[in-house]
């Protein structure tokens, strides 16, 4: 740590000795023009093109085909493509794919609650519509 914080001691109070806690990718690279750095930048642009193409596919699907196809199929396509985009953003742009596995699992496990959350609430909404349009008292 001696090479950090030595010019400005006040920094220590803001950050503490965090320098040894960085994940691997944070650690002491120096040459931004190195092949390793170039490879990373290439990966970023690759993901950009994937996101762009997936979005264009979604828009074309939404503009021209969504009224001709079965609703459930359209919804499935859109949700699958959305999850795909979200995966790329989280794994590559947010570097979650570069963190150690236990950290990745810690972030992802709470999100599985959404599976219950979505199914339960949408089913409830559908049941409301059924009740309101098929009520025997009407």
């Amino acid at each position: 740590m001696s090479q950090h914080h030595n010019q400005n001691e006040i920094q220590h109070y803001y950050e503490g000795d965090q320098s040894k806690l960085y994940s691997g990718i944070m650690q002491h690279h120096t040459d931004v023009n190195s092949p390793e750095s170039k490879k990373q930048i290439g990966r970023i642009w690759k993901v950009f093109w994937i996101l762009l193409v997936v979005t264009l596919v979604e828009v074309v699907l939404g503009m021209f085909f969504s009224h001709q196809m079965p609703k459930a199929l359209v919804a499935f396509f859109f949700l699958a493509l959305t999850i795909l985009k979200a995966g790329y953003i989280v794994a590559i742009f947010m570097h979650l794919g570069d963190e150690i596995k236990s950290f990745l699992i810690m972030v992802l496990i709470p999100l599985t609650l959404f599976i219950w959350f979505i199914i339960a609430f949408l089913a409830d909404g559908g049941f409301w519509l059924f009740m309101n349009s098929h009520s025997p008292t009407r």
Partner: protein
Amino acid sequence: MSQATATTAPETKMWGGGRSPFNVSYGKMMMWFFLLSDSFTFGALLIAYGTTRFFSAVWPDANQVFKSFPFMGEANLPLLFVSLMTFILIMSSVTMVLAVHAGHYGDKQGVIKWMLWTIVGGICFLSCQAWEWTHLHSEGGWWGSFINATDPVSTFQHFFNHHKESVQAALPAHGMQATHDFFNYFFTITGFHGAHVTSGVIFNIVVLINTVNGTYERRGHYEMVEKVGLYWHFVDLVWVFVFTCFYLL
């Protein structure tokens, strides 16, 4: 990629203290926790939107509501403007991750360049959203709009795919409530997202100023760039879901 840790403690001492078991600094981990909680806030809003939509007999059609483009008058251009907004936000996400990358290599000029582009992208996105809000407001949409039961169907039917027979049949009884609900959710959720973009732009400006002043260079690392980067990517991530829920489905 080097995964070397500063201490050489054996695996069995992983949780023995003196190091981060997750190999992540405190600030970064707390940013992840915050984003996790924020994802539940956005998730709750979007699922509430879905629930309301499921219990509505009819629902406005995105291709009808969002078909305008600035300076194009009455031209029918469904989804084109929101595609542009999405492109701008994805682009700013790319420039952000390039700033983070430059930070990993201690490349101060690179961080400044890419942070500037990210801020420009964020401001462009907010400007687009301001235009879209203004446009929808001029069409009568706002929080609490479409509540006057005596208004005729013609005041809101252009938001629907009203050439379809089943939609037309449901409009007189359910159309106004659906339009009202749709705009309430639309302005609440895109507004909440826009507030995140706004604060993200402010954080980015603060980090840019610190970078220019050499604060991170003296500190020896650009972790703050990485932390605001996480926030900025999350905002992009949320937009991916908002885009799907409001404009596509």
